[in-house]
């Protein structure tokens, strides 16, 4: 007899019909759903160009931005996305209030639920926090993961996929290199799952061994410790932000040496295909992981990413909230 404790509810992200209820993680979502998110986001892109930048999809709904960790761009784009969907938006920076007073995450959550929100957009420093919150909230509240620890940042990955698709079309022929602090990056993990699910030809991870999780190749990536070899003939280069604190943890000797061996410069970018595009989730450290001339250069899609971020977040919010509503009606 094998003792198999009851598993956690399998796929909490989808309802019985396979519709999105929560958006926590790319892992486990089918390719068709990711494509659906990208298509929906594409259709929302035009709204930003219109004079009246609003659609009434979430009118009368409340979206709470619940940020236990600081963020500027992610929070701002989520706020804009919700407002363009006509939702009421509440921004809460918990990092500086309740949790510092010793209130548990669960207690904070129950208090906020009493405000009858339809969706929580959550950022938290613990891996798995979004999953945990989704397991605790009452039904019909959608949880959107805006970054949990080192685990996942699925909307960032999807806006990157939208950016890649708009410039490169099909994923199957693409070689994509993700460069930098893979170990601490929730963005990289979500990008890998998204690229693998969408059928990218090859996904490479490039970093020194101190910034690579052990056995990360099991995620289906090729691992390189040499930047030039890692960039050879790739179609897309995604640079990751290097946190300044990494020097303190003895993970790296200095920013200067990191830039010399892993920084994306015009010289190193030349190893990629001539039509390769450059992306960065921001905020950038110019002269640490990327040369200014590359960041602002013709191959850079960094500003496109920000614009696409609003469209992707509109897509995910509208899909998850309506998924919850339909479930509630059933």
């Amino acid at each position, binding site marked *: 007899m094998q*003792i198999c404790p009851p598993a956690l509810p399998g796929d*909490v992200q989808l309802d019985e019909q396979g519709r999105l209820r929560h958006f926590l993680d790319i892992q486990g979502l089918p390719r068709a759903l990711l494509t659906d998110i990208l298509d929906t986001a594409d259709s929302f892109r035009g709204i930003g160009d219109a004079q009246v930048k609003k659609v009434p999809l979430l009118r009368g709904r409340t979206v709470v931005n619940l940020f236990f960790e600081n963020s500027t761009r992610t929070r701002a784009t989520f706020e804009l996305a919700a407002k363009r969907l006509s939702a009421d938006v509440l921004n809460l920076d918990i990092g500086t209030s309740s949790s510092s007073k010793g209130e548990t995450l*669960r207690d904070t959550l129950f208090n906020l639920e009493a405000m009858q929100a339809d969706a929580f957009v959550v950022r938290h420093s*613990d*891996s*798995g926090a979004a999953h945990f919150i989704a397991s605790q909230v009452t039904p019909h509240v959608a949880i959107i993961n805006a970054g949990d620890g*080192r685990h996942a940042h699925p909307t960032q990955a999807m806006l990157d996929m939208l950016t890649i698709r708009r410039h490169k079309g099909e994923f199957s022929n693409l070689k994509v290199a993700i460069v930098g602090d893979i170990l601490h990056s929730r963005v990289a993990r979500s990008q890998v799952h998204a690229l693998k699910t969408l059928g990218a030809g090859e996904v490479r991870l490039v970093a020194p061994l101190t910034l690579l*999780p052990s*056995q990360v190749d099991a*995620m289906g990536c090729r691992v390189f410790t040499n930047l030039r070899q890692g960039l050879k003939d790739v179609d897309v280069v995604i640079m990751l932000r290097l946190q300044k604190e990494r020097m303190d943890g003895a993970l790296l000797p200095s920013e200067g040496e990191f830039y010399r061996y892993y920084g994306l410069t015009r010289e190193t970018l030349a190893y990629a295909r001539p039509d390769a595009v450059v992306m960065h989730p921001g905020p950038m450290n110019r002269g640490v992981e990327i040369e200014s001339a590359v960041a602002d250069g013709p191959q850079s899609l960094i500003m496109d990413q920000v614009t696409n971020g609003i469209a992707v977040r509109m897509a995910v919010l509208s899909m998850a909230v309506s998924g919850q509503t339909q479930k509630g009606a059933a």
Partner: protein
Amino acid sequence: MPRIALAPDNLPRRYSLSGGHVLDLTQGINEVATLYIDDGRIAAIDTPPEGFDGVQDFDVAGLLVTPGLIDIAPHLRDPGPRYKGQLTSEVQAALAGGYTTLCPRPDTSPVLDNPSHIQTLLSKAEALGSVRVLPLGALTQGLSGQLLTNMAGLKQAGCVALTNLRQPIADTRVMLRCLEYAATFDIPVHIQPEDAALAAGGCAHEGVISARLGLSGISDTAEIMALSQWLMLIEQTGVRAHFSLLSAGRSVDLIAQAKARGLDVTADVGIAHLHWTDRLLEGFDSRFHFQPPLRDKSDRTLLREGLSEGIIDAIVSDHLPHEAAAKLAPFAASQPGMASLETCFSMGMALVDKGVLGLPRLVEALTRGPAMVLGEPLGHLSPGSPADLALFDLERTWTPAESDWHSAGFNTPLAGVALKGQCVATLTRGVARYVA
């Protein structure tokens, strides 16, 4: 449906238990036999001794009768906050699991680091008068890894061994001094090997799963490095040492080599690590947050083999009760451990049913094995030894439910899971302390 007429405190001074399957390899018994009990001690097996004509007999046919189980490392949470558990609740949990001897860990509040705390604990245990409590004392003051405790005083107060648990001793010279001083008074030292720096901040086995979930990993190297370092110091000092809660497959090899070199070392493994692997962390399931972490399948295989072959001497429940809220947090923020005294034997039986180990070896690893680690004359049924017994119904299926749980913590992944084999009665000193 009570199948036996035993009831607490109703037993005469002399009686017999007949019809049960008695299993005690130290006595070479693995068959239906009659136990004769006289004044709290085993008087004889099968042949009635003088003066036993016509004594009351209890029919225990269909049950497995073993020496009472011994756990050398449960958390009994006493002294400490009541919501985590206390001696009364956890002793009751132990009895329900077939345990008759417990060696509670010293990471209580306050820490069991001076003789007066030990005396208080032991007088509480004596007042309960059921299981044998043989406490582990702290190796360093406050378990802070810096100053030695009054080791001789702790031994005199009743500690059977000293341990710093998983708390680091950063200075290797302090490690050495601890072992030298313990060796001076012939006090065994129990060690949970883990390199604090390599394990810092970690909450999961460093491997494929932790890489994907973005959980900070603890590599098996953290255990093996510490284990190697301790073995060097043990060899130098000649102290009696026991390694508790091995989780890495490669540790088994190191223990085997140390034993082969003639070092006086023993080892145990937690029941969870014999069953489960880090695959169960998928979905951030905090029920499987353990310390040391559940490792991968190859580690589990080597731990199982090490146990079967006797390189690992004992199984521990690693009982660690928590209030419900302790597990209701994101994985890394949740508290590690499970309340397992009540399920440990059933989990062991699941391994027997799977063919991982034989029933005699399971019973040995829960009785004689831990007794040998302690160097105590317990865990066997030789005439004259205390009548500490556990009676199990191996066919009985049961499902852990909060309503009939004894421990203060119902933090078990086995809630609602059908288990086979359950303790139906526990006796210490010939007296029934628990009857299902």
